[in-house]
């Protein structure tokens, strides 16, 4: 298999301990800052040495603690894109891209530099120095420089975090095109679920040095195994939960009993629902007596240009405190239909949208 990684390394306040295989496609490594994501990349690149483990790329052993193998970074043929790009400030764009091509004859190297300069849309900028480039251009140079050595795997450390919003979507497109042409393992470290979701079909969630979830992105988003993974993938609503029957739980923090779509296989510690999955229902008698429908009161709201986030309290109006039970998110047009209705409003926590979560 392409990139096999098994790494143990003691860090300042936890241990990095992961084992996984990356196929010939991008894999997002999602996790909060300080989860060990960057350290993991650095171990693969050969910039840090694990305490124990084994790293192999297409059968080629890069690191094996048992056999005492630890290839230096220069022999690993692994391209790394640093968070701050680390472009050599004293070299022009063309010289930066050419840096790793020293072993090639000059003419071949020049041709290759030109290929990657064109591929990353840097033509016309090749004689500039890094400080004369915008953030997006610098990132493209870093990408061209890493790809020019024909690396057998690509490591990207928060590639979009230093860019502003509008450049970010341009670079996302650039990265998607790059990945489509690359067809080798690419590990992409990010703390942004949307970035991870758009750039790869598989994800690995890292939390305090351990793999909290791994698999197809849709599967992780639909059935996050733990509260932490749910939170990292953007879920906002959680309640402690207790199984009360084969297919119902008591949501302790929300003070209600919830019907589930399937029977419980493992007693959950929490139940969660994503903010956009909360539905508002018409107050006709038939609807509000249905399952998982509860009366609620609006505590406050916050708006973005097209969406609104509603902070809701279940079962009874506000009693002076500001506490809310649920955060619902919906398009403003949709909200316009409900906002003038008399209280209480009614929300439905659809059995299909409920996620049972472990500690």
């Amino acid at each position, binding site marked *: 298999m392409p990139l096999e990684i098994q790494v143990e390394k003691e860090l300042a306040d936890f241990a990095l301990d992961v084992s996984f295989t990356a196929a010939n496609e991008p894999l997002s490594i999602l996790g909060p800052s300080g989860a060990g994501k960057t350290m993991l990349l650095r171990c693969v*690149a*050969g*910039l840090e040495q694990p305490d124990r483990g084994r790293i192999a790329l297409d059968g080629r052993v890069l690191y094996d603690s048992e056999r005492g193998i630890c290839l*230096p*970074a*220069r*022999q*690993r*043929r*692994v*391209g*790394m894109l*640093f968070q*701050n790009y*680390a*472009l*050599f*400030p*004293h*070299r022009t764009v063309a010289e930066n891209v050419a*840096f*790793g091509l*020293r*072993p090639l004859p000059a003419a071949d190297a020049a041709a290759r530099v030109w290929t990657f300069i064109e591929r990353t849309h840097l033509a016309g900028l090749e*004689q*500039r*120095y*890094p*400080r*004369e480039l915008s953030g997006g251009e610098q990132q493209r140079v870093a990408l061209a*420089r*890493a790809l020019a*050595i024909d690396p057998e795997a690509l490591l990207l450390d928060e590639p979009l975090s230093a860019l502003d919003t509008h450049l970010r979507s341009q670079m996302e497109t650039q990265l998607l095109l790059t990945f489509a042409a690359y067809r080798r393992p690419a590990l992409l470290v990010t703390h942004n679920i949307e970035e991870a979701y758009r750039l790869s079909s598989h994800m690995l969630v890292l939390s305090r040095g351990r793999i909290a979830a791994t698999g197809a992105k849709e599967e992780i988003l639909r059935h996050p195994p733990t509260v932490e993974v749910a939170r990292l993938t953007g879920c906002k609503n959680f309640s402690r939960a207790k199984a009360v029957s084969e297919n119902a739980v008591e949501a302790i923090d929300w003070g209600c009993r919830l019907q589930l779509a399937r029977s419980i296989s493992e007693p959950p510690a929490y139940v969660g629902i994503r903010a956009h999955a909360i539905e508002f229902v018409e107050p006709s008698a038939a609807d509000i007596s249905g399952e998982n429908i509860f009366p609620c009161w609006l505590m406050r709201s916050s708006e973005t240009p097209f969406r609104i986030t509603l902070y809701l309290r279940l079962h009874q109006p506000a009693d002076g405190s500001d506490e809310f039970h649920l955060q619902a998110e919906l398009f403003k047009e949709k909200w316009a239909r409900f906002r003038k209705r008399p209280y209480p409003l009614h929300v439905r926590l659809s059995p299909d949208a409920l996620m049972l979560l472990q500690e």
Partner: protein
Amino acid sequence: MDWSPLWISLATSLTATAITLIAGLAAAAWRERRTGPMMALVDGIFLLPLVLPPTVVGFLLLLLLGRNGPVGKLLLRFGATVVFSWPATVIAAAVVAFPLMYLTARAALEQVDPHYLQAARTLGASEWHVFREVALPLAWPGVLAGTILSFARALGEFGATLLLAGNIPGKTETIPIAIYFAVEANDLQRAAIWCAVDIGLSLALLAGLYHWTHVQGAGRVQWSRR
């Protein structure tokens, strides 16, 4: 007037600075990758010539390189003596200038963002290539400042030179030594001329250093198209 002390001083300082530059850079690059309790001792030894009186340095060099010293004996086998010869002025000047070069080179190398070096390594560069193509060019402004300081220090060297190389006119008589013996011989005019030459040289060097560090932009080269 015999101008030989000027040429001897310049030749000595230039040679000593070249040796110091290479040795100081090598020592700084070697030291930068190491940690441990022994390194404090290594630093101490490297910096000792900066704090010791030059006469002590000269005396130690004399013990080492003299006819009965370990290195002196070895050289004698090949029919060579260092003491009281022109190479002795170079050795004395290089040893006292070394700490300045070592200190500034280390500070300059430490200032280089390690990400640049790591990026170079992932691009397949050997450690020598990383040093020559990335670390050294980025540390160059600091290294150059250290070189100028070392040259100035070598030019002013007196005590160690006198002990190790003596005062042989036309051979080991540098400007500072010429001044000392001119004053001793009550030839104040000669002393004054050499003082003026020395002040002129040093001022030019310091002005050059100031120009480099301040006018060129606070000690950093701005890489961009002119």
